[in-house]
C-alpha cells in the first residue's frame, strides 16, 4: 500500500497521531501550569486522597539522601511495599518488594536485594536518574497492590492495569495492559506487554495487541484475551472521570489497578498518554474526541459524563466515519 493510501486510511479511521495529540489536544486542554500535579506522582496521590479517590496507601516519602536511612523505619510494619520515583516515567525505577528474607528484600519476581542495593537505587532515583530531564526527585514508599486473581490467567508476573483516556472528564477509550515474560512483568506496551482494548459500555475485553501485532491469546498463559469482563468497571469509570476534577487537565490517561481487597486503585495519571491504546482497541481516538466536542456537556456531573460515554462509545464506535458525518451520527 502506498504511503498516501495508508495516510488516507489512518485519516479515515480517525487515528490520532502524535503531532495532532500534542498540537490539538495536549496544548489546548492541558495547561502547562497543571503539569506538576500529574508529573509528580506524590502530588497526584495527595490530591486523590483528599478527593476520596482510592490509591495505594502511602507509607512515606524519601526526599533527601538523608531520608534513605529512614526507609527501614517507614516499612517497619509492612512486609511488602513499593518504591516509586515520583517523577519516573513508564515504570522506570520502580522496585516492588514482596517480602523479606532475613535482612534481604525479596522483589516480586524473586530476586533478593540487600539494603545497600536499595540505598544506591534510592540515591540514584533522588538524583534524578529516572526523572524526565534528570531533575531532583523524591521517592514514594507505598503499599503493594495485591492484584486481583481475576487477571491471573492473563498475565505473567507483574500487575495488569487498566488505562482509561479521559477527555475533559469523559472516559473515551480504555484498555487493560497485561504483563508478559517479554515485558519482565511490567505493564508497559512498549516493553512487550499485551494491550487489550476494553469496551467502555460493558467493560469487557476486546482483542489483544502485542508489539503492534494482533494477538488472540496471552503469549505466556495461552488464555484467550477477548471476552473477559473487568470487575467493578463502573467504579473504574467513576474514578477515572473524577480524575478530571482532580487535576483540571483535559486530556489524561488514568492508570487503575484492581486490588484483591481494596478494589480499583488509581496508580498514577499521565498528562501525555500514549497512542498505543488505539491499536489495542483497533479504534481511532480522534472520532471519539470529535463526538465529545460536538455533543458532550463537559460541565456535567461525573455520572452524566459516564452515561454519555456509555451511550456513545459502545464498541465499535460506528462505521468508518468522515469528520463531517459525526454530527449526523450522534444528532
Amino acid at each position, binding site marked *: 500500500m502506498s504511503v498516501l493510501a495508508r495516510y488516507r*486510511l489512518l485519516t479515515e479511521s480517525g487515528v490520532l497521531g502524535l503531532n495532532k495529540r500534542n498540537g490539538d489536544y495536549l496544548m489546548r486542554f492541558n495547561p502547562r501550569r497543571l503539569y506538576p500535579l500529574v508529573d509528580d506522582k506524590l502530588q497526584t496521590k495527595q490530591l486523590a486522597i483528599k478527593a476520596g479517590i482510592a490509591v495505594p496507601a502511602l507509607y512515606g516519602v524519601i526526599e533527601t539522601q538523608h531520608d534513605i536511612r529512614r526507609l527501614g523505619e517507614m516499612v517497619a510494619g509492612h512486609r511488602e511495599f513499593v518504591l516509586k520515583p515520583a517523577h519516573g516515567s513508564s515504570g522506570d525505577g520502580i522496585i516492588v518488594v514482596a517480602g523479606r528474607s532475613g535482612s534481604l528484600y525479596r522483589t516480586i519476581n524473586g530476586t533478593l536485594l540487600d539494603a545497600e542495593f536499595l540505598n544506591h537505587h534510592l540515591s540514584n532515583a533522588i538524583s534524578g536518574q529516572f526523572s524526565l530531564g534528570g531533575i531532583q526527585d523524591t521517592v514514594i514508599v507505598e503499599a503493594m497492590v495485591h492484584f486481583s486473581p481475576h487477571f491471573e490467567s492473563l498475565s505473567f508476573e507483574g500487575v495488569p492495569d487498566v488505562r482509561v483516556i479521559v477527555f475533559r472528564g469523559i472516559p473515551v477509550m480504555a484498555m487493560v495492559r497485561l504483563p508478559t515474560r517479554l515485558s519482565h512483568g511490567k505493564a508497559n506496551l512498549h516493553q512487550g506487554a499485551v494491550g487489550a482494548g476494553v469496551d467502555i459500555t460493558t467493560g469487557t475485553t476486546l482483542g489483544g495487541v502485542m508489539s503492534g501485532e494482533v494477538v488472540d491469546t496471552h503469549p505466556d498463559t495461552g488464555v484467550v484475551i477477548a471476552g473477559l469482563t473487568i470487575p467493578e468497571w463502573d467504579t473504574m469509570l467513576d474514578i477515572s472521570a473524577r480524575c478530571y476534577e482532580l487535576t483540571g487537565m483535559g486530556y489524561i490517561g488514568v492508570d487503575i489497578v484492581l486490588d484483591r481487597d481494596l478494589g480499583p486503585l488509581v496508580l498514577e495519571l499521565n498528562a501525555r498518554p500514549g497512542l498505543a491504546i488505539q491499536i489495542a482497541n483497533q479504534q481511532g481516538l480522534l472520532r471519539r474526541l470529535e463526538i465529545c466536542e460536538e455533543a458532550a456537556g463537559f460541565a456535567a456531573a461525573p455520572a452524566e459524563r459516564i452515561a454519555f460515554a456509555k451511550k456513545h462509545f459502545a464498541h465499535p464506535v460506528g462505521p468508518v466515519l468522515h469528520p463531517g458525518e459525526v454530527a449526523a451520527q450522534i444528532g
Partner: protein
Amino acid sequence: MRNRQLYILASLLAVAGLAIFFFKYQTLGFPVRADAETQVWNVEAAVNFEPGPASVKVTLQIPSLTPGFTVLDESFVSRGFGLSTHNTTNGREAQWAVREADGPQTVYYRALVYRDPAKATEDSTPPFPEIPEFDEASRIAVDGLIAEVRRQSADVASFTSELLRHIDNAGSDQYVRLFLSDTSSSTAKAQLATRILAAAQIPARVSHGVFLKEQTGAARTVPLLEVHDGVEWLYFDPVTRAQGWPQDFLVWWRGNGPIADVDGGVDVDVSLAVQRSVLNSLEVAERRMDSMGSQAFDFSLFSLPITTQAVYSVLVMIPIGALVIVLLRNFIGIKTFGTFMPVLVALAFRETRLLWGIVLFAVIVAFGLLIRFYLERLRLLLVPRLTCVLTVVVILMAGISVLSQKLNIQPGLSIALFPMVIISMTIERMSIVWEERGASEALQEGFGSLVVAALTYVVMGIPWLSHLIFVFPELLLVVLAVTLLTGRYTGYRLLELKRFRSFAKPADPAGSPP
C-alpha cells in the same frame, strides 16, 4: 484563530525574507551561486603626444552612456596634469591641463566595465535635424541620392540600409563619388550617412566604441550609425550594413569629433587596449555598491572581521540543521537522544568528515558505554558518575588524537571538536535506555541519532545552500516561517503509518477476534 495568526505571521516573514533576497539579488547584484564569476574588462585609453612650448590641454572623450555595460571603476593617470571631467551634449570628457610640459607625454584613462543587461539603451527622441548646408553641386547630388534611395525603400530602416549600400559603392556611385572615394574610412562613411540622413530629415548620429569580445590587447574604435525612426533608435554597422545592436559593443563617445584633442601639442596618438578578466561576483557587487554609495554591504555579514565571518558562516547553517531535525522528528518520526544533539554532532562532522566522524563517534560512545556499565557496578551517585563519564570521554578523545598523530591519520585530530558534554549525556541516557528497555531499543535510538546527525551534516554542508544563507541571511526569515508552519503540522508521522499498520483493514472497524 490561532492558526490564522500563524499563517499571517509565517507569510509576513516569508515575504519579508524573499523581498530582501530578491532586492539584493536583482538590484544589488549579490550572486546566488558561490562560484559565480563576472566577466569584467579593463579598457584603457592612452593619449601620447609631443607637447608644444606653451600650456597644453588634452581633451579625451570618455564613456558615459554605455548600453549593455556598467562602469564599475575608473581611474585617470597622468603626471603633473590637472584633471577635470565634464558632461557635454555628446557624453562626457576628461580634460588634462598643464602649463608647461617637457618631452613626450602620455595620459591614461582606465575603466573597469562589466556586462549589465539591465543597462538599457537610451530612448530619448531627438528633434528633427537641421538640414546641413551643401554647395550647389553637392546639393543636387544629395537630392538625387535621396530621391533614388527613397524610391528603393519603404521606411527609415530600409532607407538607411539602402543609403549605406550606395555609400559603400562610393567609387562607382554617381552621387556618392562626389563626396567619398573607395578608400574612405568607415568613420567618414558613417559621417556622410548622418549628413545625408539629416538632409532627408531623419535624425542620425555616429557613436564610436570598441568591441570587447574575448580579445585582449590593442583595440580600435569602430563607428556605429544610430538612426531614429521616430519611435526608437536603430543601429547600423556602416560597413556591413547589418542592423541591430552589436554584441559586446562598448560605446565610448558619440558625435563627429575625434576621441581626443590636444590643444598645444603635436603628434597626437590615441591607443586603446582591452583586457578581459574575471572577478568574483561578490567582489563586483561589493565594488558596485561602493560606487553607488549603497550601505547594504556595510550592514551585511561581510562587514564583520574575517574570523567572525567564518564563525557566522557556520552559525547561520544551524537553523537549517535544526529544520532538518524538525522534519525528521515531526514528519518522519525518527527518535534521537536529545533534541539538538545531532546538530552538534553534525557540526563536529564538518571537521572530521562524515566517515571518520561516524567511526570516531561510534568508538567514543561504545567505549563510554563500557565504562558507564562498569561504573554502574560501583554504585556511584548520578552527578559524580556523569562527571566520570565526561572525564573518560575527554581522556578517550585525547588518546585517539595522540594515537592518530602517531599513525599519521589526520582526521583523528579533529576529534577535539566533538561536543563532549553532549556525548557524555548521550552515553548516560543510552545506558539507561539499554538497561530499562533493552539493548535493541538503545542501539536503535543511537543509530537513529547517528543517521539524523549524518543527514543534518550533509544538508548543512551543501555548498550552494551555505553560500546562499551566508550571502542572504534574510532567508533565515523564510526558514523561520517554514518552521512556524511545521509547528502546526498535526498530521501523521511517516513511521506512524507503520506503527498503526494493524488499521489496514478499515472494512472491519471492529477489528477484534470473535
